[in-house]
């Protein structure tokens, strides 16, 4: 098992518009650990993930990955949000080829291998617009495999997935963690892998 970096979050405050969602949020995640963020709708789960990804600036506090230049942190993070980042006009293979070239870093699986891992090996040349919601989500998950990055930030990763695909997702997460990776996932249902829990409070 290789050692990955360690995620350190210190004294983070989240603000959305004028609403203060959380403050004084601190946690550390060691290589090989997963964290599931729970809480009611609107509690700030997605906001926290976007702040961790560097897409939103925190109101206060810091996020760091050990051994990684803060300027280059985003290049060590996979962000799998609600939107799948797939182009409808392109095929699943073309979408994955593009993200593999663009995300860069060390070589991961080929698009075909990645599609096999999510049980979509039979549909590489179909435009993504023809795929069902669950299949699209699986192509989006395959993106995490074509460019290896240590920290996976996942927003409701099991949305639209059937039971078999959820089990496959759990296997993928298991493999990522045992390779020294880190996962932070916002979720309402059990993650499928052993994970710590961070409960964000929400006001009704």
């Amino acid at each position, binding site marked *: 098992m290789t050692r990955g970096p360690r995620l350190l979050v210190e004294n983070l405050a989240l603000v959305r518009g004028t609403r203060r969602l959380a403050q004084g949020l601190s946690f550390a995640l060691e290589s090989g650990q997963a964290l599931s963020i729970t809480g009611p709708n609107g509690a700030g789960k997605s906001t926290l993930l976007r702040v961790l990804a560097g897409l939103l600036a925190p109101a206060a506090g810091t996020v760091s990955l050990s051994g990684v230049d803060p300027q280059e942190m985003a290049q060590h*993070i996979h*962000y799998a*949000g609600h*939107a799948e980042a797939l182009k409808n*006009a392109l095929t699943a293979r073309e979408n994955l080829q593009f993200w593999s*070239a*663009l*995300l*860069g870093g060390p070589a991961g699986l080929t698009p075909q291998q990645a599609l096999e891992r999510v049980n979509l090996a039979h549909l590489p040349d179909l435009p993504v617009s023809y795929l069902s919601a669950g299949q699209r989500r699986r192509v989006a998950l395959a993106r995490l495999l074509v460019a290896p990055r240590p920290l996976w930030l996942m927003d409701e990763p099991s949305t639209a997935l059937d039971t078999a695909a959820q089990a496959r997702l759990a296997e993928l997460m298991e493999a990522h963690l045992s390779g020294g990776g880190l996962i932070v996932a916002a979720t309402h249902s059990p993650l499928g892998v052993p994970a710590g829990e961070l409960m964000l409070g929400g006001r009704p």
Partner: protein
Amino acid sequence: MSAALALFKRELRIASRAGGGGAMGVVFFLILITIVPFAIGPDLNLLSRIGPAILWIAALLAMLLGLDRLFLGDHEDGSLDLLQMGALPLEVVIVVKCLAHWAVTGLPLVIVAPLFGLMLAVEGDGLAGVAASLLAGTPALTLIGAIGAALTVSLRRGGLLLAILVLPFTVPVLIFGVSAASAASGGTVPFATPFLILCALSLAALALAPFAAAAALRSRD
């Protein structure tokens, strides 16, 4: 470098697939050019005198037509978040996207403008002048438009706002574009003077617009 090339190829591929809207600008350009003689009447001298200006205004409007989609698709499907997190700086992403957008919307106008100019009784040197000035000036339109597109990307129905924001800033390009195109078909001003200023406008836009657009995209919520 390979990442930039992959992005360029992807943009062209999306534009060429169904619903990409690649040919829409050219068709709009043709329609604008076609209705002008109907409105003005069959006065060939008048048409050939104002032809370069009509061609430039039509090109400006045709370029504006697809600009609101420059970042909108990537914003809506979440690609923009990932482009922001890639190894390629966002400024470079914007330059590549503008280049691809120009190749799909601006370059076809440069190619068909001499042909459509014939419908406005623009002749010989004038046609070459229009094509050359469009070649030098349309990149500035795309790049200035990119700033507007980045500012309005998270707004619903931002297209009209984009036009209102961008059009005033395209006035210098229009002035020197038309004067270069007119100078080519005769007149007291040498062709090179407005043409070089037009080139300078495009280069200045290339130097400034990517940073402005990147700042706007980073601050979207």
